[in-house]
């Protein structure tokens, strides 16, 4: 029957359309370049996406490789990398949702070991990392700071701190930990004080609602952003004078703060404009309207890191947090030196210089 033939022809066309698929399939991983001078960037990825990636950017060739870690090791880091550090020839990558710390060679990124952050199987939520006096410290959402022995790569001690600690900084042989309490109905408002000689919390300094990003000038002061409760309590920048135990504070809209060479560098917080700021640490007043002086536009400054050797400022642009990010490098006068995409890396949060 003619009608049957028509129908059959339609079915054949459908089958043909179905068999033609023209999208690209992922190319096999390229041979990773040899690491010389450059920077590693940790891209957080999306929650639940197992797409945390590491970018290597080579200063000499101006090329980036993502995912460098997977290219070297043949496996992906997992979900939501929240921080990384290079210390004592090793690279430590904190995997918040996957619940472990990956340890790799600091130059080749060759995988060495995993340090699990599970408490009876339950993820502690490792978040921030710091190092001092031969030890590595990892703060976790479960209210602990882990002390990691850098040769055995095991946790030797969990120090109990406040609720849902966020960031850590070491100043004058003391580890300071900001406690957000961000997972609870009532926020925390303290900074835990942990002398490195005892590795026990000796006390807590009350600083303000929801303390987050924290830094130090290494001359007796700690700076901490108190993010507030997002409703009634506005964010404040709090300066703690360690010796006199006095507090100084101003209204702020900061996300992340970093100290370098008599300046405080900031990214805009949830209320603030999407910019990078520079502030005077004594007066807590802005040095100028924006740190960036050449008009370089950044969609969403997310990561903020400073090269201690040169004072170059690295800003990770997270864009919309679901598409490829970009990293900008500025000199200390706020002029762009270079920038690179971390595609397909998402939400570049941490930039660390290669230490040869």
């Amino acid at each position, binding site marked *: 029957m003619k009608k049957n033939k028509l129908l059959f022809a339609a079915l054949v066309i*459908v089958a043909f359309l179905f068999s033609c698929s023209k999208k690209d399939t992922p190319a096999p991983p390229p041979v990773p370049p040899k690491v010389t001078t450059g920077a590693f960037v940790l891209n957080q990825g999306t929650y639940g996406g197992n797409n945390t990636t590491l970018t290597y950017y080579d200063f000499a060739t101006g090329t980036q490789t993502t995912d460098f870690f997977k290219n070297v090791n043949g496996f992906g880091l997992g979900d939501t990398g929240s921080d990384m550090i290079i210390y004592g020839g090793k690279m430590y990558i904190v995997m918040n949702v996957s619940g472990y710390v990956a340890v790799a060679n600091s130059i080749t990124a060759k995988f060495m070991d995993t340090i699990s952050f599970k408490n009876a199987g339950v993820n502690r939520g490792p978040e921030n990392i710091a190092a001092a006096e031969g030890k590595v410290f990892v703060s976790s959402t479960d209210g602990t700071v882990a002390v990691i022995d850098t040769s055995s790569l095991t946790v030797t001690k969990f120090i109990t701190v406040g609720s849902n600690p966020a960031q850590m900084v070491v100043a004058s042989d003391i580890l300071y930990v900001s406690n957000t309490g961000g997972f609870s109905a009532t926020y925390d408002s303290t900074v835990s004080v942990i002398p490195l000689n005892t590795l026990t919390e000796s006390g807590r300094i009350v600083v303000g609602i929801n303390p987050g990003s924290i830094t130090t000038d290494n001359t007796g002061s700690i700076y901490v952003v108190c993010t507030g409760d997002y409703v009634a309590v506005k964010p404040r920048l709090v300066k703690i004078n360690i010796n006199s135990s006095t507090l100084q504070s101003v209204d702020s809209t900061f996300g992340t703060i970093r100290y370098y060479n008599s300046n405080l560098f900031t990214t805009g917080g949830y209320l603030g404009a999407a910019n990078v700021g520079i502030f005077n640490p004594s007066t807590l007043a802005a040095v100028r309207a924006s740190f960036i002086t050449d008009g370089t536009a950044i969609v969403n400054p997310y990561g903020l890191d400073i090269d201690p050797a040169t004072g170059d400022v690295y800003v990770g642009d997270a864009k919309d947090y679901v598409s490829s990010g970009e990293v900008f490098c500025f000199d200390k006068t706020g002029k762009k030196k270079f920038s690179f995409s971390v595609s397909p890396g998402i939400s570049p949060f941490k930039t660390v210089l290669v230490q040869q």
Partner: protein
Amino acid sequence: MPGAFLFAQNKSDSAKVLQKVTVTGERKHNPFTAIVPVQVLNHEALLQMNAENIADAAKYFSGVLIKDYGGVGGLKTISVRSLGGLNTGLVYDGINIADAQTGQVDLSKFSATFVQSVELDQANPQQIPMPARIYSSASILSFTSSSFNTANFSKAKWLAGINAGSFGLWQPYAGVYVPVSKNTVVSANAEATWATGDYPYHIENGMFSQKAYRTNSDIQSYQGEINVVNRFADSSTLQTKAWGYQSERGLPGSIIFFNDISVQRLEDKDFFIQSRYLKKLNETTTILASAKYSSLFTKYTDPNFLNNAGGLDDRYTQNEMYGSLSLSHRLGEYFSFSVASDLASTHLSANINSFPTPTRMSVWNNLMIEFTKSHWQINASLLNTNINDKTISGTAAVNKNKFTPAFAIGYKPDPESPFLFRFFYKEIFRMPTFNDLYYTYNININPKLLPEYSEQYDAGITYSKNFNSSVSQISFSADGYYNNIRDKIIAVPAQNLFIWTMKNIGKVRITGIDLNGQINGKFSADLKWSARIAYTWQRALDVTDPLSSVYKDEIPYTPDQSGSGMAAVFYKIWSAGYNILFSDERYTLGENDPTNLLPGWNEQDVFVSARFPFKNFQTIIKGEVNNIFNQQYDVIHYYPMPGRSYKLSITINNL
């Protein structure tokens, strides 16, 4: 509820409509003669597929993406023609099932066992009179029970059965239909579903690759309903339904590398009672009154959540009162019109600190005019929606008062022609949900949030013809469509990954083609066969921001091609069949980078069933092998679907 093409039947329009509403079960409508795209799976088709719930059935429709999080207990929501999960209305026995909190209903709550038919209508179902709320969605997924079938008036009927399957599936059910008087039928049915859901899957991650089993994927659910249908002396009818559902299930979450613990649980307790009264006032006028009360309770727990309270225990209770009055009237030989007014009051409370506790008053008014003459059927409607939110604390959303039109036209070359040409346009919006507006955890409240608009254009052709040969019927439809979404509601991080806000910023442009074919026949008096296919090609592009890296990239989870096929043969007491669902590859993120590409998949199922008649009843035994090639795939990335599974069913009934 398709608009069966009523050429040469103008004079009896209302009568036909009346009969259709009453005789839900017996209606043998042909969806290939409707002036808007309609797809129907009748009871016979439902029996041929592996459908634990209506979501499994809806996967066989063209243009449909069921977001399936895997397993019997996995949440299942529907998106039609890439318009998103909140633009499809759900209608059970003529009245909407709504959830103002999330805007979309988990279709896994609705068992397919007692369902007479499942239907997908694009734009407006072509039926009058009909509540105004049914006009308020871009498409309507409706399903009907067999409880209001007029055949139930003739004798008492009963059925009972059990399904047993892989991964701990047990599903016993039973139902009775009793004509308690000449004009009253009472029916009741109930079903329990237990599944452990511990199916194997594979984690691919280099040296850490491993075989694993889904954990915390179990479900136990119970559902039941009681129906009463009354026929009165004036031929009016009253249908009343009380429905209850209770479930407790694990939420296994996405696969997280290096972290396999999952302890989140979800508990649902849902109840509704609804009533519909239909009366023909005279030869030209029919009225329909509907009312419903519904209550939805949800409890979500996460004992591992790292708060000071030692875990999360969030509870939400949503209540809704709903009423509708509609009237249809035939004016002269060619025109008919219908008006409808609906009112709903929806309240949501929660045990969460400083929860705004919103109450939403919604009013819908709809006017529809239809013209039917020889070759033409034309239908235009205008919907007025008025939404007013109030909150106990915090800021309530601004009031909304909107008018949205729809238009459909059908043309037959001549009244006897098997061909029909059709076109429709519909503009509609979806309201911001309570979660969009008032969910406080990690979300900045945005009371200025506007509705999300969609415009649909569709042009198509259908063909349907009966034959006296080995092929007894061939039906085919092809529709091309263009959809435009503006003010799409998108969650945007507010300078921090953990604090988000909702904004009306998205624009999406969707073009697509839907093809549907159905063919039935018989080789001999004993040997019959049937086949159907549904195919979709579409492109859904993000056109929000020309400067963005995702501009004109495909939106997440929209395959270029997807579809389904079913084929079955029937020989005496035996029947056997083959089903396939397939999907092309698609991106998991808005950025169309190869690393975000999720592979295409197909799932193929086979079954054999036999019916053994006895004196007063019959027994049907069915065996299924589902996903016969053990295809490992995800519909949603890192939510693995079950591989090969088996199911054995036995039913006894006197139907």
